[in-house]
C-alpha cells in the first residue's frame, strides 16, 4: 500500500466469501446471493408484528429486529419526511419552487437509507431522494435550492458526505463506486449508499456500477426503490427478471427484497447490509418494494397511466400509519412523544416556508465563477461583458440591478 501510509487496510476484508458463506450459514453461495424466497417484512400494514417465521427470513438471510431507540429516532424522521414532502409540494403549487419530485409514500426507504450510515460514510441520492439527503443532516433549505432554480445544487457535498442529487439516471452509482474505491485504497472503512429507482435499472451505468463494485470488491450498497413506475412506464416494461434483487447474483453479490413501506424491516435489512459491507462482504443489492403515491412531479398526470384503485391499495400500506400503530402498540409512542415529533416536523416545514418564501437575489456573475478552478481568458471576457451590461442597466434605471437583472 503506497497511498497515504498513515492508514492501514482493514484486517476484516475477505475475498473468499463463498467458503465463508458455507461455514457461516451452511448454504451455497448461490443461495446466499439470491434473495430469500419472500421479501423481508416484519410489520403488517395494520401495524401488528409478524411472527418470526412469517418475516421471510431464511438461513443466511436473517435480520435482527432494530432496537427501540433506533425505531423511535427513525419514526421521528419518517414524520418529518412526510411533512417535508407535503410542504414542498405545497410550495410548488404556490409558485415558490419550479418543481418537486415527491417521495410521498416512500419515506420509510428515504429514512432507512440515511440512518443506517455512519458519519464517515457517503450517500449518493437521485432527484427524488431529498428526504434522505435531509435525514443525513443537510440543511432543508439548501437541499431545495436546486428545485427553487437558484443554482443546480445548493449544498456542499463534502459537509455531510452526500453526493449532489443526480438527475441523469444511475450515473451517480458509478460516483459511489469511485468514492468507495478511493476510500478502500486509503484503507478507510467507508460504506457508500448508492440509490436509484426501478426504471433506472435498465440503464447501462447500473450494470457498469454493479459490476465494477463487485470486481473491485467495494463496500457499496445499491439500494433500489422499486416504486413501480418510471414516470408512466410500469416495471413490466423495464425488466422480466424474477425480481430486481435477482440481478445481484449475476454480478456475484448478494441481493435481498424488502417491504419498502415497513420501516422496521428496512432498518433491519439495511443495518445488516452496512455491517456486512463494512466487514468486507463487498457490494450488496437491496430492492425495496414501495409505491410513488403521487405523480412523478407536479408536471405529470398519474391518472393517465394508473387506476385509482391501485393507488388506494397502496394507501392502505402507508409506511407512516403502520409505524405509528406499531410503536403505539409496543408502548413506545405516547401522546407526548407524538406531539413532540409533530412539532419538530412543523418546525422543519416552517423553516422551508420561510427559507423558500423569500427570493434570494441571484448573482449573475456567478455564471462565470465556478466553471473552472482556474478561469480562462475567454470566460473573463464574457464575465466583463455581462458586468458592463448590468452596470449600464443599473445606471439607466438608477437602481441596483446586480441581483435581479437576469430574471427580467
Amino acid at each position, binding site marked *: *500500500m*503506497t*497511498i*497515504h501510509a498513515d492508514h492501514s487496510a482493514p484486517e476484516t476484508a475477505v475475498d473468499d466469501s463463498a467458503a465463508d458463506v458455507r461455514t457461516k450459514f451452511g448454504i451455497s453461495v448461490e443461495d446466499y446471493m439470491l434473495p430469500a424466497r419472500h421479501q423481508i417484512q416484519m410489520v403488517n400494514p395494520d401495524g401488528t408484528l409478524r411472527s418470526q417465521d412469517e418475516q421471510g427470513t431464511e438461513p443466511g438471510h436473517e435480520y435482527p429486529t432494530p432496537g427501540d431507540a433506533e425505531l423511535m429516532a427513525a419514526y421521528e424522521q419518517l414524520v418529518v419526511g412526510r411533512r417535508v414532502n407535503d410542504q414542498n409540494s405545497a410550495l410548488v403549487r404556490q409558485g415558490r419552487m419550479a418543481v418537486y419530485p415527491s417521495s410521498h409514500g416512500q419515506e420509510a426507504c428515504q429514512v432507512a437509507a440515511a440512518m443506517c450510515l455512519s458519519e464517515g460514510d*457517503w450517500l449518493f441520492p437521485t432527484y427524488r431522494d431529498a428526504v434522505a439527503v435531509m435525514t443525513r443532516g443537510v440543511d432543508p433549505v439548501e437541499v431545495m435550492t436546486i428545485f427553487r432554480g437558484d*443554482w*443546480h*445544487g445548493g449544498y*456542499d*457535498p*463534502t459537509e455531510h458526505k452526500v*453526493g*449532489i442529487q443526480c438527475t*441523469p439516471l444511475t*450515473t451517480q*452509482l*458509478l*460516483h*459511489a*463506486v*469511485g*468514492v*468507495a*474505491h*478511493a*476510500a478502500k*485504497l*486509503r484503507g478507510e472503512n467507508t460504506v457508500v449508499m448508492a440509490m436509484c429507482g426501478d426504471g433506472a435499472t435498465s440503464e*447501462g*451505468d447500473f450494470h*457498469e*456500477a454493479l*459490476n*465494477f463494485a463487485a*470486481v473491485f470488491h467495494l463496500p457499496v450498497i445499491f439500494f433500489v426503490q422499486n416504486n413501480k413506475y418510471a414516470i408512466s412506464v410500469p416495471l413490466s416494461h423495464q425488466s422480466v427478471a424474477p425480481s430486481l434483487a435477482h440481478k445481484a447474483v449475476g454480478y456475484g453479490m448478494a441481493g435481498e427484497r424488502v417491504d419498502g413501506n415497513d420501516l422496521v424491516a428496512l432498518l433491519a435489512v439495511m443495518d445488516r447490509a452496512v455491517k456486512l459491507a463494512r466487514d468486507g462482504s463487498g457490494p450488496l443489492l437491496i430492492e425495496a418494494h414501495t409505491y410513488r403515491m403521487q405523480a412523478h412531479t407536479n408536471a405529470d398526470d398519474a391518472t393517465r397511466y394508473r387506476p385509482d384503485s391501485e393507488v388506494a391499495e397502496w394507501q392502505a400500506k402507508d409506511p407512516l400509519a403502520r409505524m405509528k400503530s406499531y410503536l403505539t402498540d409496543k408502548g413506545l409512542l405516547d401522546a407526548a412523544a407524538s406531539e413532540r415529533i409533530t412539532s419538530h416536523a412543523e418546525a422543519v416545514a416552517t423553516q422551508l416556508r420561510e427559507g423558500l418564501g423569500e427570493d434570494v437575489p441571484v448573482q449573475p456573475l*456567478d455564471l462565470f*465563477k*465556478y*466553471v*473552472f*478552478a*482556474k478561469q*480562462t*481568458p*475567454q470566460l473573463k471576457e464574457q464575465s466583463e461583458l455581462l458586468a458592463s451590461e448590468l452596470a449600464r442597466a443599473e445606471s439607466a434605471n438608477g437602481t441596483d440591478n446586480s441581483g435581479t437583472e437576469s430574471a427580467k
Partner: protein
Amino acid sequence: MTVTTSANGTTTANVSAATASAAASAAATAEATGPQSLTMAKALNTAMADAMRNDPSVLVFGEDVGMLGGVFRITDGLMAEFGEQRCFDTPLAESGIVGMAVGMAINGMRPAIEMQFDAFAYPAFEQIVSHVAKMHNRTKGKLKMPMVIRVPYAGGIGGVEHHCDSSESYYAHTAGLKVYTPATVADGYRMLREAIDSDDPVMFMEPKKLYWSKDQVDLGALRAEHDAGTSTEGRAAVARPGTDATLIAYGPSVPTALAAAAAAAEEGRSLEVIDVRTLVPFDDETVCASVRKTGRAVVIAEAHGFASVSSEIVARVQERAFHYLAAPILRVTGFDVPFPSPKLEHYYLPSVDRILDAVDDLQWED
C-alpha cells in the same frame, strides 16, 4: 512537391504493427540526463511515472493499461513500479471508467485514465459532459474534478473502423472541460504533467500518429521546468517563425503545417506556424498577434471542418484581427465525411499540397 499524409509516412500500417512499434520505443531508457532521443510515447509514459512518484493520489486505470501497458504502451511499466492499486485494468466499460474516476476525484484522488481509442470513448460521453464538466460548477467549487482523460486520437496510422476519429470538437464545445493536445515530444511530457497537476478536468488528446515521432529532449531540464512551476497552460507556441502568412495548427496537423512551411520557404514564401497546444483555454493573444503581423492565415485540422475547433478559430481571429487581414482566412480540414478507411484516409487528411494550395489562394496579387 510530395504528398505526405502522416509524420512517419505509413498510411497503411495496421494497428498491431503500430503497437509493436510503440512497445519498442517505450523500452528506450528515459532516465539519462542531457539531450536524448525520445519518442512522444516515452515522454508521456515518463510524465505519468513522474507524477505518480510525486503524488500518491495520482492513479492510472483503464482497459489493458496494467500488465500490457496499454495498446499503445503509454502506461508501460507503471503497474510494475507503482503496484496494482495505483495502475490497474478495469472491466471493459468506458462509462464505468470515467464514472468511477469522478467518484475517486470526489474522494481525494487524481485519476489519469485512459480511453483506449477516440471512437471507443463515446460510451463515456454522458459521464464526461454531465458530470466531469459540470461537477465544479454545480457545487460552486466545493467539488473539484482533478482528472485527466487521455484519448489517443486522429488519423495517420491506417486504423481500421472506429480506431481513428477526431473527437476534439465535442469536448472543446463542452463548457467545463479543458482540452490539451501536444504536438512535440517535449510538450508530451510538459503538458501531461500540467494536465495531471490541474484542478480542472483535462481531455488530453494524444495524436496517435505522433506517438512514435522522435526528438532530442532533455528530461532533466523538463523536470526542472515542471518543478519550478512555470505553467504554459493556455499558451500557443510559435513552432516556426515567418512573415508572409500564418498557418494555425494543433496536434497531428502541426508536423504537416511545418512540412508545408518548409516547402513554401523553398519557393521564397515565409510562413509562420502556430501550434495552438491547448484548444481550451485558447490563446487568442498569440494567434492573433501572428495574424496581425502576417495579414493572412490558414487554419489546419484533421477533424471535419463543419462546426469544429477550426471554424471556432476562424471566427475568433476575424473578430479580433479583421482590419489586419489581406484575405479571408481559409481552412484545410478533413472533409465532412465519416473518418475514412486506411486506403482512403490520405485523400481525407490535410496534406502539404492542400495547405500550399490554400496559401496560394490568399489573394497575393492584391
